[in-house]
């Protein structure tokens, strides 16, 4: 075969090879990673600020009805380890941070009353939402996307996307829907054991091979560095300072520093916009919670702290004693439940990313 023919062949082969791949696009395709095939184009957040975190849809594997041990018998959680506690269906469910760092989402609860617990290690925020037992699939997964460094979940029934910290569907068929929140309490494990020794604690027997002793993001918890973009850099506090934020009417917000309560339990009867709130916390015991002080009958209570009686943490002028989940355990309102506020514990940078110009409570 003449050399000339070889030259032609080689050149044609090369360009055909390049064309085969180039012709495929110059862009993405497929059915997921972005938004799982959701076709409605509207976003509640700037789409160009939504980023692909890398692992892909459920690449950080959510847990589904995992295994539990009681708080008194489990031996893999250290006293100072942070945990998230949820009271739901007559039970206290506890989720150690060191497991949630690796899974972020747990689809949990009895079949008749499912709920979704999520924890975003990049924003330090936890949330629990009621599921709908009648849904064909009430479970949620991780979309692999982030907004303001914060986890974006998707619901498996409609594949709509949900911002964890906005607590709203931001894209898809259920856009603008808000989940029903369940109160979560973050605290250290020894405090949780004092409060609820019979609580059920998520075990490391998750079915996934992960080194739960190892934090996956190196010094992220304490460093001022971020791994993904977030809006509204506000240097009034250290970026990773943990704050309890309260949001009112979608725009006014105030934060309470978790290290600002002191060694005794303290209550702050405060006003955030039009909302009367109580914030109860204890820095040494490492907890904080916030509730609406105004009851359905119009009464506005004023709270004072209760010491050394966990899980009971505050009392009011009527003589009621209230536990950490905002339930009256004694007094004339026994059994009543304080209303939740729109609040979250999160790193300061994350709170301000979603809620610019937040007020900071100072004693």
């Amino acid at each position, binding site marked *: 075969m003449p050399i000339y023919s*070889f030259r032609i062949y080689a050149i044609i082969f090369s360009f055909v090879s390049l064309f085969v791949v180039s012709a495929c696009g110059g862009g993405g395709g497929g059915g997921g990673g972005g938004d799982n095939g959701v076709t409605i184009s509207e976003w509640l957040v700037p789409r160009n600020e939504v980023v692909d975190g890398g692992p892909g849809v459920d690449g950080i594997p959510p847990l589904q009805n995992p295994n539990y041990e009681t708080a008194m018998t489990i031996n893999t959680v250290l006293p100072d380890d942070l945990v998230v506690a949820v009271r739901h269906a007559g039970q206290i469910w506890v989720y150690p941070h060191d497991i949630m760092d690796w899974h972020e989402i747990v689809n949990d609860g009895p079949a008749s009353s499912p709920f979704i617990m999520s924890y975003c290690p990049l924003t330090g925020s936890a949330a629990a939402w009621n599921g709908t037992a009648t849904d064909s699939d009430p479970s949620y997964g991780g979309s692999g996307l982030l907004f303001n460094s914060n986890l974006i979940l998707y619901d498996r029934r409609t594949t709509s996307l949900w911002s964890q910290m906005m607590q709203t569907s931001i894209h898809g068929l259920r856009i603008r829907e808000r989940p029903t929140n369940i109160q979560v309490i973050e605290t250290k494990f020894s405090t949780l054991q004092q409060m609820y020794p019979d609580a059920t604690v998520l075990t490391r027997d998750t079915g996934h091979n992960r080194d739960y002793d190892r934090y996956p993001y190196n010094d992220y918890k304490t460093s001022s560095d971020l791994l993904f973009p977030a809006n509204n850099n506000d240097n009034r506090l250290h970026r990773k300072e943990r704050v309890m934020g309260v949001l009112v009417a979608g725009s006014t917000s105030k934060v309470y520093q978790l290290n600002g309560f002191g060694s005794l339990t303290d209550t702050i009867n405060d006003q955030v916009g039009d909302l009367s709130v109580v914030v109860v916390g204890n820095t040494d015991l490492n907890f904080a919670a916030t509730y609406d002080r105004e009851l359905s009958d119009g009464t506005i209570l004023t709270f004072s702290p209760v010491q050394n009686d966990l899980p009971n943490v505050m009392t009011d002028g009527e003589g009621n004693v209230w536990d950490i989940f905002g339930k009256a355990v004694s007094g004339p309102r026994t059994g009543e439940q304080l209303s939740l506020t729109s609040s979250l514990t999160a790193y300061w940078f994350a709170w301000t990313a979603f809620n610019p110009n937040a007020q900071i409570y100072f004693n």
Partner: protein
Amino acid sequence: MIRLRLIQCSAIVLACLPLGSIAQTCSCASVPLLGSMQLASPKNDQWYLATTYEFHDISDLVAGSSSVRDTTGRDRTSQAFMFELSKGLNDKWSISALLSAVDHEREVNNVSASASGLGDAIVMLKYAPKAISLYSSTSLSFGIGARLPIGVDDATQQGVDLAEDMQPSVGAYGGILWAYWAHALNDSKGARIYVSLSHTQNGENDRDYQFGEESTVTLGGAYQTQTPWGFNLELLYRTADRDQRNSVDIPNTGGNWLDVIPAVQYHLNESLALSAAAKIPVSRNLNDSLQFTTKYSFRLSLSYVFGGTG
């Protein structure tokens, strides 16, 4: 006999090409491209043309140096086509250019994402003060080059930018240094050993992302038989720094890899050769707690040498 001698002459060019030496320097958005640039050093007025297909299966989950069972049903592959053209400027200097087209596929729990398009280009100037010939049993080459971000670095999935490792192009300029030494072990020059070194420095792209610096060391042996068949065996060590965003280290990126690369070539005639190579992990020690990394990769290549004064 004359045909065999001609094959051996072209093999001097082809067999001295380290298969993995510059491989990682043309990573297209983090995927190391095995032998992506073969770094031929054509002689005066000689042309070297190669087209290469590579496939990477990036589904090994590794914690440090230990394999971890993946429970996410993840399937992550990359393919690349590359077209390389080199021209000998004189007996010592030559210039090479490489174009790439890349396809990334990611599927986790049956949900897929993909991106494809033009990848990065590389241009490299090479200086070969010594070459293996009838009078010399040693070859020495140096190269300096640049990676040009001419490809697609803004691939999206329904409007959302895909992660950096899914982009066909790194999206930033980069610099490459390369050196290569080979020594023929017998008079026929059919057997040789070689060492090559490379270092790549990556710039920051417009999303403030910077892939980590990479260095490689390749130890290899090549043997061209008296038939059209030739064989290579390489040991490739690669070390990469963590990637960064806004100058902040990204956890679970970077590390050290040791791979073995067996390869075979078949010379269709004095100018045209086919080659196939596979990259098989020997060991790796990756940064931080968990990373997906290459399970295996392979490469098919067709190369053609023409023109020149010999």
